[in-house]
């Protein structure tokens, strides 16, 4: 009997030990690239190519960051990225919220088909549509503006779907009570539905933000002038300017790129995790 319990205890210890090692492994796996990016961006060019590589910079320098700003007209690209991202989020919200409200609460002719279309759009990858869209944009003579990076993303199928699910959780009684309180549909949407769907709205906004901020392929195809290109493309340009690849400069560029995303995740991590858990997204 004594030995049986010892076995049990040992087994539990072993399990928790394995689990801890695994978690540590995952953490390193995810964090190391980040760490490497940060460290490299503070190295000198010489420091970045020594062999074997060092885990910390020999001489800590902001040289790489300076170079990013001198080599590129960074403010122009940053401005484009911000405008595109903000515009996409605002338009998606303005279109997505009423659409989701209508899909969740009204019965109208063709609702099923329209919802199916939204879902279908959700599943079609951009690689299939980009040529057609490109031709359309070029006919509209929009390629030297930011519009091709904004307008096609004005409606997010994913956002509409997720918000609709959240809106459907709101009890009908509450909406009817609001109607009896003489609230118009806009007011019901903003005062009743949105507060109830806060976590979903945040998830949607966050995904749009990351998607738009990080998008590379689409602006690459849809722009024909430097003045309308976003930060992602600019960082790419840091690569091919020199004969040898200047890693600290590229990493500094990437730092500037991911900093806003990182900040937002750090500031809102609690809310993000709770909203994801609530949705059942792992």
């Amino acid at each position: 009997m004594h030995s049986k319990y010892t076995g049990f205890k040992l087994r539990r210890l072993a399990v928790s030990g394995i689990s801890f090692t695994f978690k540590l492994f995952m953490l390193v796996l995810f964090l190391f690239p980040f760490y490497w990016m940060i460290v490299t961006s503070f190295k000198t060019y010489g420091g970045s190519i020594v062999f074997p590589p060092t885990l910390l910079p020999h001489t800590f320098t902001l040289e790489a960051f300076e170079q990013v700003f001198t080599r590129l007209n960074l403010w122009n690209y940053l401005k484009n990225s911000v405008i595109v991202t903000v515009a996409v989020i605002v338009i998606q919200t303005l279109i997505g919220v009423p659409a989701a409200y209508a899909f969740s609460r009204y019965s109208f002719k063709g609702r099923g088909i329209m919802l199916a279309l939204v879902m279908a759009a959700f599943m079609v990858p951009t690689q299939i549509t980009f040529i057609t869209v490109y031709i359309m944009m070029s006919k509209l003579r929009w390629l030297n503006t930011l519009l091709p990076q904004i307008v096609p993303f004005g409606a997010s199928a994913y956002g509409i779907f997720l918000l609709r699910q959240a809106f459907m959780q709101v009890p009908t009684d509450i909406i009817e009570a609001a109607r009896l309180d003489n609230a118009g549909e806009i007011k019901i949407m903003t005062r009743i539905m949105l507060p109830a769907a806060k976590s979903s709205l945040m998830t949607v906004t966050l995904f749009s933000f990351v998607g738009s901020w990080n998008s590379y392929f689409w602006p690459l195809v849809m722009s024909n002038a430097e003045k309308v290109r976003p930060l992602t493309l600019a960082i790419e340009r840091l690569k091919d300017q020199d004969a040898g690849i200047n890693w600290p400069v590229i990493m500094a560029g990437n730092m500037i790129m991911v900093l806003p995303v990182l900040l937002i995740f750090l500031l809102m991590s609690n809310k993000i995790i709770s909203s994801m858990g609530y949705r059942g997204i792992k």
Partner: protein
Amino acid sequence: MAKIEFLDVHKSFGSAKVIENLNLTLEDGKFNVLVGPSGCGKTTLLRMIAGIGPATKGQILLDGEDVSNIPPGKRGVAMVFQSYAIYPMMTVRQNIEFGLKNNRVPKAERERRISEVSQVVGLAPYLGRKPSQLSGGQRQRVALARAMVKEPKVFLMDEPLSNLDAKLRGAMRSELVQLHKQLKTTFVYVTHDQVEAMAMGDCIILMDQGKIMQQSDPETMYRDPNNIFAAQFIGTPPTNIVEIGSENFKLGFRPETIILSANAGPDRAFTRRVKIMTREMLGAETFYKLCLEDGQEAMARLTNSSLAEGDTLYLQVDEDNLYFFDAKGNRVRKTGSQHYDAMVERVKRSHES
């Protein structure tokens, strides 16, 4: 204040006809109680008045005006939902204020009304709280306050007390009756509890399967039911219904009108030998389940608790306490039926044979 009229109203959900050909008038200023078993259409009726579940066909008039095309928020009605439906993300104050703001009531007036109403329902200390920080009874008061503050012409209440414990329910019942006396507006109160209906209503509307079975004051509802359904729905235990041999009518009598004795008195209209099957002593009164000689059963509700299971006695009921019903279950009254006396005779004779 408003009179509410239903004219030939129909309501169906898809192919399911829930209400057909309803004609009903709810008098101005009365405490109307809609009562009936679950699923009979009480909530459906309220929702039609409120305009949130419009009638499929027919007209609904408020003070003689057809409201079919008036949106819910402009009808001057307020509703307390079965589920309360208070806005979970707003504070108590915001909940109460929401309707007033939407109706463009000026700020000073809003403040005055909110403080008045929250005094009346006892919510003053809780105005800053979120609904999740309130007890069930307090939430119910929020729902009530939200309706009261609008000073509506018509007050609709859908089983507002059903989620409360027995004690609080009793207290709220008398508070609502009190409130009605103060406001003197038209109340339409839904319940499936006959005791609540009898205790609170000026006018009871008894429904079954989308039809009005009887509309009258509580006293009449109890003393003079229109049909077997009304006789059995009101009263505990329900009215006994027995068949007399092979007659094509049925006889009803309330458990509390039964006289049980060792010797049958000569002048009673209905007499049967019965055996006591079970006895339930409830304090002031005792319920006895009785078995008639022909196998039919009846319940008696007496103050006498000294009878025992297995006793064999005479059950008697006076003529005044007998209800006659035709084969369809509708009441046959003394006035207006030439068969009435003959039926009484047949009941009297039925014991001797």
